């Protein structure tokens, strides 16, 4: 019974994410209007057949911008999780498997990074590096390493005492081989699940930073940037903020459900 529920989550999550992915791909090849094309007469046009999601303060088509923004946000989050996740996994694997002085050094550095809220850490990086897409990805990636490192290290600590690892050692397998061929696959569900959660956090972090005006720069569209610009017109033209907002919710819901379904 319980298992079914989890699977339902997983399936629903996959469906939502698939739809999102389709929208991103659609936005990559086709948008009804240019995402940045301005059109004076359509300023603040309400949703209609002409503009499915309405138009913003420059008469830009919100549907087109949402497609583009979804791509931007998704891409930033994906790269962030990929870089942060890979680095984190590597650090976690090395420290968890070998332990010793390396473990001490890397994990203390990790502790220092963890001591800062990741959002604050990203803010600091951005104020040093300057705003922009590339810097945003870099800042978020670094902020995401500690959580991955911690989770992966825990898994490796657990598995390195297992009998099959010990016997692999006796067979003379190298440390690298044991880590990545023998242990990593067992840790994979946990890593994937944290990647899904990490992706959600990255989406939110990108949206928040862009909302604060230090992420994606105008006129580029990202979901957070769009909400930020639309917040001033929340009451007179709610569609400007609602649709990008709904997209963020769906994206997070989708990945949240997948990560739920993946657990155990």
């Amino acid at each position, binding site marked *: 019974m319980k298992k079914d529920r989890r699977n339902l989550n997983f399936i629903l999550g996959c469906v939502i994410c698939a739809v999102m992915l389709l929208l991103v791909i659609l936005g990559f090849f086709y948008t009804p209007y240019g995402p*940045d094309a*301005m059109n*004076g007469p359509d300023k603040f046009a309400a949703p209609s057949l002409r503009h499915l999601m309405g138009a913003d*303060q420059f*008469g830009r088509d919100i549907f087109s911008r949402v497609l583009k923004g979804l791509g931007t946000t998704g891409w930033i989050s994906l790269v962030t999780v990929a870089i942060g996740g890979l680095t984190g996994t590597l650090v976690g694997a090395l420290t968890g498997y070998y332990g010793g002085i390396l473990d001490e050094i890397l994990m203390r550095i990790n502790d220092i990074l963890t001591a800062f809220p990741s959002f604050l850490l990203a803010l600091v990086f951005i104020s040093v590096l300057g*705003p*922009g897409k590339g810097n945003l990805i870099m800042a978020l990636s670094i902020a995401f390493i500690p959580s991955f490192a911690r989770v992966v290290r825990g898994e490796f600590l657990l598995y390195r005492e297992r009998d099959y690892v010990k016997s692999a050692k006796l067979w003379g397998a190298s440390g690298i081989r044991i880590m990545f061929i023998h242990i990593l696959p067992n840790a994979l569900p946990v890593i994937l699940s944290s990647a899904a959660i990490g992706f959600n956090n990255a989406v939110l972090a990108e949206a928040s930073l862009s909302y604060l005006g230090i992420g994606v720069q*105008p006129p580029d569209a990202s979901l957070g940037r769009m909400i930020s610009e639309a917040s*001033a017109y*929340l009451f007179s033209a709610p569609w400007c903020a609602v649709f990008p907002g709904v997209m963020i919710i769906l994206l997070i819901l989708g990945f949240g459900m997948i990560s739920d379904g993946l657990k155990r």
Partner: protein
Amino acid sequence: MNRKSLLRHLTVLGVLTLTIALGGCSGDKTEKGSEAVPGKESSQVSSGEPSMGGSIVVGIPQDLEDSLDPHKMVAAGTKEVLFNINEGLVKPDSDGNLIEAVASHYDISEDGKTYTFTLRDGVKFHNGNPVTVDDVIYSIERCADATGGEPLVPAYSNIESIEADGNNVVITLKEPNTEFLAYMTTAIIPKDYNELDTQPVGTGPFRYVSRSPQENIVIEKFADYWGEPAYLDQVEFKIVADADTIVMSLKGGSIDMYARLTSSQAAELKEDFNIEEGTMNLVQALYLNHAEAPFDNKLVRQAMCYAVNPQEVMMMIADGKGTEIGSSMFPAFGKYYVEDLKDMYTQDLNKAKELLTEAGYPDGFDMTITVPSNYQPHIDTAQVLVEQLKQVGIRATIQMIEWDSWLSDVYADHNYQSTVVGVDASALTARALLERFTTGNSGNFINYSNPEYDSLFQQAVSTADDAKQVEIYKQMETLLAEDAANVYIQDLADLVALNKKYGGYTFYPLYVQDMSKIYLVKQ
């Protein structure tokens, strides 16, 4: 921290000689204020019985980072606040006239070389001391001091002598100068007072109370003010550095007033706020750094002028409000303003492409527009410009930076490609707008250099004939337009939101907020 304060000092140093208010906006005026000022409204839109007392919170886009010293401030955003604290011998009124302030009377000799100011009786500084002739002489000499190179007020290099004569101050000029009175708005400060930067003291209707960096500046009513007292007891200027939060802050009640809104922001607020409309009195343009390729090429600059349509910008950001301009001069300057210049580059995409091809950029080029992140009208303008430039193949990207960084990187260090801002004038003369583009001027942040322009400027400041001077200034404006020194856009419409509890908002032809005229409406 160290680096930042160093930068700040450099910035201030770099710009201190020309008090230019450069902020997102500005204002300025005709010389003796006798000209009509089109587009400016001094009417008090909000009605209702004024009552004494109360307080208000005014949102401002930037902290007063440059200096609280009225002689050293450079940003328009600083001037608009300090206007309430400091006064000169004369000061501008809302119609653009120069009226007597610390001086009760002035005389200009027949030959235009001797100015005699009679001190007003009973004017007191905020520290309680009466204003004396010594204070006045000290203030003016401080601005005329040329030991550090250019004097704080460059026009003061024309001063031959300043002398006390009983209750009078007599200023003798080396050369007759018709613009000189406009520069007598220099703040009068107490003699040998060294804490202007932290605790400014002036003679205005409000006195300085406190400042929290990046948070607020508080001023309160000065009870011993010589003139018409302020209605409100206290005014807090609160820094709203993120343009996206302005509307929410107004609606949420954390600020009561905000000037220079976009039309979309104003539309969102019109039900709960009184929206007053005037002009900002500044030159908004896409300022180009002539030291950077390809902007050193006149053909490229002209192509950009042909690619841009200011009318469309105004339509997008202000529903068509604003005045299109074609050079560094705006309509409030009356006699100096050459209206026809705005038609020099009517949008013509083919022409723009031809010019780009001729300049060697048939496929356009990449460029960066740096915009201060606290000025929504400039951010919006930049976004429209990106689209317009795209039509001729110029690929522009926007980089938003903090106001502090703008002052240091762009304005002081000239480290940028292009920027959208508004430049105002610090005095009521054309010189205040045009002098900055002379070669080597500390305010010449676009690195414009044209020997013909420089020699015209020399002629203009050395002539005593007003009509001839106006003519030369007009030639200088025309030269700027012909050289396409910048992509001139507009003098922006100024939309001010004021909570309905208050009344008395008054527009000035300068970049100031006169808080002494604002009152709580009697319930």
